[in-house]
């Protein structure tokens, strides 16, 4: 086999390998969809319970991704979970925005949902979101249902 044909085949092989790698990066993995904002602002929020929320989880508002959870820590002064959110500067939120830990689908990943309030003032870098809603813990939910049921039968309503 001549040198030129051999080089051609090796070139095709290497090019195909690199194309496969690029496809793996862009089409299969999150390298293309990962959240990249030019400018972002940081706010924090305190939760009684964040479920299994992890750093890197998405922050969504009305289903649109507006930021990412930057860090998750436990505050031993108040015994609450403190999370830091990085939000794209294109999306300003009012000061009385509610943050909730939600789950996508029945068993999907957990994310932070933001619901805008009606305040004139905007959230600024370093602000704290006051209104938060904890993650739903399945055991607590079942306990609540059982408790309500027992109360209903006990008081003789039914």
């Amino acid at each position, binding site marked *: 086999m001549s040198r030129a044909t*051999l080089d051609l085949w090796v070139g095709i*092989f290497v090019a195909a*390998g690199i194309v496969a790698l690029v496809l793996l990066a862009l089409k299969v993995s999150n390298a293309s969809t990962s959240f990249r904002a030019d400018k972002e602002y940081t706010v924090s929020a305190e939760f009684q319970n964040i479920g299994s929320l992890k750093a890197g989880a998405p922050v969504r508002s009305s289903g649109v991704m507006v930021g990412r959870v930057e860090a998750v820590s436990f505050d031993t002064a108040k015994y609450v979970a403190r999370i830091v959110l990085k939000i794209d500067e294109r999306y300003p939120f009012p000061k009385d925005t509610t943050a909730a830990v939600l789950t996508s689908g029945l*068993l999907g990943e957990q994310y932070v949902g933001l619901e805008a309030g009606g305040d004139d003032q905007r959230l600024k870098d370093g602000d704290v979101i006051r209104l938060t809603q904890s993650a739903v813990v399945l055991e607590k939910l079942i306990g609540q249902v059982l408790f309500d049921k027992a109360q209903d039968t006990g008081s003789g309503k039914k």
Partner: protein
Amino acid sequence: MLDHAASGLRLLGARVINGIIRLGYGSRFFVLVLLRSGTSFRRFHLTVREVYFAGVLSLVIIVVSGIFVGMVLGLQGYDTLQKYGSSESVGSLVALSLVRELGPVVAALLFAGRAGSAMTAEIGLMKATEQLQAMEMMAVDPIARVVGPRFWGGVLSMPLLAALFSMVGIFGGYLVVVVTIGVDSGAWWSQMQDAVDFKNDIVNGLVKSFVFGVAVTAIAVFEGYDAPPTAEGVSHATTRTVVTSSLAILGLDFVLTAFMFMGD
């Protein structure tokens, strides 16, 4: 009675010592190949030729196996996941299993059978027909001229083959799950992108395939160079290459997986 026990122990001892000697010999040979690999890069066309023999000629088996592995994964994954009503996530199952494990491991096993055995047989035959000695007589270093380019050609081909295997496998899964069964194509890709992380999954898979490439080619060239210069010796060396490198791939895979995915 005591005699039998002693001779049995002696046999065991001899085997262990022999194994250690070969391991040491192999390690020194490996270092020697690395030290003398300047030629492989200075005369790069030698390495390109070996990329052709190790990589390009392995393409057919890698691509065909990749498609079938992906299709089977898609079928099996769909069959089980639809019982739980989550047939959309079969995309992430196929992609994660291919990128993390099956891509690097199966591609390396096929590579050991297809290219590693050929390397051993070729170098072993060159030794048996005294071509290596002839080179030494002409003051050409056979390790730099023959072994080095083969080693680097294999090492360069392996990650590319593994990436191709994974990509073709995902395409095979797509054919079965999306085109034939009719799962939504948007859900297939978006669930996949949700689950597969570039750094943790794809880069780690590449690192794995690189390590396997080094292991397989190092074993193959060593077995060839070390083969007794007879027809029987070369055939035994070729068999040993396939067996040893397959075991090395599986063992290394466990160790690498333990380090890569047990971190968190």
